[in-house]
């Protein structure tokens, strides 16, 4: 049964799109047929991060409106045969996301894919609500700072009350936390919240900690999901997170300040 996974956060700029790309790529690398959908209508970014911006013809909104069919709009990744990108429209806005249209498209995607990764827009308005409404599983992307944690908390509350699973009293949306832009050195100095601080407030399972890393920016700018870069700490942290998502046990890396020296020896100053 295909699984709909929403990547959401409430707050903007925490790394939802980077995570969507890296997570979808990680699933594809493990052999799962995966599509990643851009729900950020009007602020189309996922295609850039996935490096397929020059191949976009039809988009999500065209398919919702019936102007194009699914296979015309889906873009196959050139690096991995299991990975597909479903770009959104840059000229429309979030109001174009009609719930019944989205439902129809998702049902159609479920016939073809194992995982449907939804890259949510920021905020708690229509676009974000539509992105999370049909989710079976949610990955809450949070930065180790108070405003991001509070917004994540709000989104968790919305997932628990306004998702389709909540409305139908079905088993709740599976929740997982992904802590991104984590800098153990700044945490040690008290400039960032610790993993434990964040966990205590959000109290949902931790899927992974992605260290702040130059490789993330480089990956974005070159249109490569960072999980394709196995030499970068962030890429390996994403692959760990995907493994944990699939139920594997992996030791949490890049977290503890005492690991910092090990980390720096291997990768230089991150």
């Amino acid at each position: 049964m295909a699984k709909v996974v929403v990547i959401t956060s409430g707050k903007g700029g925490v790394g939802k799109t980077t995570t969507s790309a890296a997570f979808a790529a990680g699933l594809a690398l493990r052999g799962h047929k995966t599509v990643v959908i851009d729900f950020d209508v009007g602020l189309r970014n996922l295609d850039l991060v996935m490096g397929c911006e020059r191949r976009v013809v039809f988009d999500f909104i065209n398919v919702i409106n019936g102007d194009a069919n699914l296979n015309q709009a889906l873009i196959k990744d050139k690096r991995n045969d299991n990975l597909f990108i479903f770009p959104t429209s840059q000229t429309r806005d979030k109001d174009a996301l009609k719930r019944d249209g989205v439902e129809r498209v998702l049902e159609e995607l479920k016939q073809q894919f194992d995982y449907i990764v939804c890259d949510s827009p920021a905020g708690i308005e229509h676009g974000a609500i539509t992105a999370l409404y049909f989710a079976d599983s949610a990955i809450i992307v949070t930065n180790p700072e108070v405003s991001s944690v509070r917004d994540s908390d709000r989104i968790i509350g919305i997932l628990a009350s306004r998702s389709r699973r909540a409305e139908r009293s079905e088993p709740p949306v599976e929740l997982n936390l992904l802590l991104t832009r984590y800098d153990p050195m700044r945490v040690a100095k008290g400039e960032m919240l610790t993993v434990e601080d964040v966990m205590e407030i959000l109290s949902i399972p931790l899927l992974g900690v992605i260290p702040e890393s130059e490789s993330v920016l480089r990956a974005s700018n070159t249109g490569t999901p960072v999980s394709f870069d196995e030499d970068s700490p962030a890429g390996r942290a994403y692959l760990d997170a995907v493994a944990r998502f699939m139920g594997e046990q992996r030791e949490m890396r890049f977290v503890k300040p005492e690991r910092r020296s090990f980390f720096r020896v291997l990768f230089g100053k991150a």
Partner: protein
Amino acid sequence: MAGNLVQGALFTVMVVRAGMLRDAEFEDELARQIERSPRFFQNAPVVLDLKSAEAFATAEEFVRARELLRQYTLALVGVQNALPAQIEAASAAGLASFAPSAPQPSRRQASAPTPEPAPPAAERASRAPTRLVTEPVRSGTQIYARGTDLVVTAAVSPGAELVADGNIHVYGALRGRALAGASGDAGARIFCSRLEAELVSIAGRYLVSEQLPQEQRGFPVEIALVDEQLTITRN
């Protein structure tokens, strides 16, 4: 004295069918009617009829309905024909429940569907079952225990709000707001296993985070109103 405080009265209340709120034409029609007789509708109380409207199931839905009606100067005060889950959600949104299906004392049923002032918490506390919440209360969530105590067995996040006409117990960290004795019961108290609140209030007296004594922060405390002063004691 308590006897004099509670008096029955009959009111005329408009009833809006919940299904109509989803109808695109409803707002236009409502706007037209209000334009014809604006003073009649000014702050007029409205009861939402939930008959065959099971989709209204969350507090947010009711808050949205209230906001929608508010735009047209109408004040949503309660619901009728609600299912038990809907009563709970409506109550969380601060709405009263009117008969026939409300599980309430017969005295209230007899006078329904009449809005009446909520009886003081002290009188009703023994009748309404305690509201129990076992999940973390997330930022942006408001929980109202109408006429009763509220017990939370998980953490209350910053930006969440607990309101009870009776006492509030939090068996976890209290990081949001807690307002006990919300309808005036000065005997209500707040208990929590870790005080990190943004605001605590009893019967309208309140302290914001800044005013909470530093030495009490992070500890299990009991908060009571003593001689009109909010008093925090460590448990």
